[in-house]
């Protein structure tokens, strides 16, 4: 069995990549993919921790996260598609009308 630490490190790296991508990319779909990346990094963390501690709760939590992520993707993609139909662009920088 590979040391759980390596899995954690991989998960951390994936999380970091997802964060940076979320902050730096303009395309809404890419930002969504980054969010998914972050979620999956967390899943990986939970699984490896569960394996290392011999606790099933890790896998139970992952189930929850997978379901929520799926629901969130449905709603989010529906919104993005609706915006795209109106604006013919998926750039989030243009969605700044709610300014103060």
């Amino acid at each position: 069995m590979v040391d759980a630490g390596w899995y954690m490190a991989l998960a951390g790296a994936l999380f970091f990549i997802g964060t940076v991508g979320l902050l730096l990319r303009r395309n809404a779909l890419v930002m969504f993919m980054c969010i998914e990346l972050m979620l999956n990094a967390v899943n990986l963390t939970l699984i490896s921790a569960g394996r290392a501690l011999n606790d099933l709760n890790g896998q139970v939590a992952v189930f929850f996260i997978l379901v929520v992520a799926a629901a969130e993707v449905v709603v989010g993609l529906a919104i993005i598609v609706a915006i795209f139909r109106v604006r013919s662009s998926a750039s989030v920088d243009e969605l700044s009308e709610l300014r103060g």
Partner: protein
Amino acid sequence: MIDLLWLIIALPLAAAVFLHFFGRYLKEPLSGWLASAAIGGSFAVAVVASIPFIQGGEHGETQMLWDWMPAIGAGFEILWDPLSALMTLIVTGVGALIHVFAIGYMHGDERFHRFFTYLNLFAASMLTLVLANNYAMLFLGWELVGLCSYLLIGFWYTRSAPPPAAKKAFVVNRIGDFGFMVGLMIVFTTFGTLSYTGIFARAGDVLSSGLATAIGLLFLVGAAGKSAQLPLYVWLPDAMEGPTPVSALIHAATMVTAGVYVIARSAAIYELSTVAQVTVATIGALTALWAASIALAQRDIKRVLAYSTISQLGYMFLAVGATAYVAGIFHLMTHAFFKALLFLGAGSVIHAMNDEQDMHKMGGLFTRLPVTAWTMGIATLAIAGIPPLAGFWSKDEILGSAFSRGGWFSVLWVMGLLTALLTAFYMTRQWVMVFLGLPRWAEGVEPHESPRVMTLPLVILAGLSVVGGLINTPLRLTLEHFLDPAFELVTLQHPPEGLGMFVLLAGLSVVAGLAGAAAAFVTYRQPHNAWRDFENGLEPLWGTWEEAYRVDDIYGRAIVYPGRRAAEVAAFNVDLPVIDGAVNGLGRLVRGLGDWARPLQTGFVRSYAALFLAGTVVVVIWLVSAS
């Protein structure tokens, strides 16, 4: 019998309420007759209910109509004893005559029914005051008569002079009320109740002389306001702006006597404080002399009578201050007769002269207004203290009582004597100036005698002024025996015993009266230029009297102006910048904060995401460090 006493207050009150709502639908004289009937009904009830007292021996009873505030001994409780009975008879009797007179005087006024609404409301209030068995109900009546006075003085509110006069009356009265209320508070904290039955019998045991002095002096402040004594008399001359029946009823016969009544009713308290007694009497005598001097030089027919009222009230205060309570109440009664007569007569003259009130423009009215002239002449003799008319007996009893008390009161006696001389002078001056000599009136004025609805009350009051004094002569003290049960807790002061002293003292006051009257008669019988020269020759003294010692001016500069400046400073220099500033400043602060925070809302999704991340980092660090 006591069961029907509530009618005395209820009849005028009900009439007032009825006239308030439905008066406008009644044709003109009807509302006046309704009001007169209401107060006449009260008089009838009072007469019947007074019979037990006339027969003698009855002590009086109380009847609780509604226990309003049991905790402080304040209920709508009627006290029917000889003193309240006498006051009721005066208020309703003279009041009824004045109501009838007013039907003629107010003829043609477009607010005719409203006038009678207020008159009846006043009557109900004054009766509440005199029939009360506790200070709370008395004070309720006290305040209500002040309100009615305000409403009636300012009755012709479209003219420029009445509204300020009405306000002045109310405000000056309020100053007196403040003193009265503090006195009532002391009474309550000392006795635990405001009910007469719980106070007067225990006064001797409960009150120290210091407390009695305090209460007595504070009640004097209230009485001075209501009864127009120094220094709170200034509202009464201005109150002459009201219609003449108002001046007769409120400012001569009834409301202004409330102060005298309060002191007489509180005799058990004054019994315990010589200081308070002396103060009351001194204020009374000073006021009497002061006001008489002012009356000498007045040109307006009603102003003479106003200052005369202040002066005569001073006599009443002198009496009750000397603990000659019967004498004081006796003079209250005779004064009601002849002063009401004088005011109504003046009203008759004013009515005849097309609302002219300056005596310099009258003269020679004797043949045109014979009834008015004769009745006013009788009243003038009465007030001057010429026997056997009413004023002589009551005034003499006061002066005699002051004399026999001695000491400082002898000085007050001299002041009273001097005042009698001045009184005779200015009243004769008025009568001669108005009715004798050559006519001096303007073109187009056609003086005519008043209709019978106005002259009949004059005649009745003249009759009372003639015989009214006979109910308390030294030969037969009927009134004193009548009032005895009301004053059994105190010792009454009397004039000296013996026929010799009586003749001496009475003789002195009669001489003073005749001297004053003769001097005025001789002076003013001369042609108009001659007495004009006489008056001008007495400058600057005459001018000072005519301007009433410029007291209104002094008060204006010493009290009114600083008060107004203080109000302006408070409004514009404190309220506006400080308080409004604080509230507005708070608003500006909040808006400023908002302006500062607004740039956070960029609308940029990515900046929100960055903030999100930063916040998460902070939370994680905190969670990690906390564990």
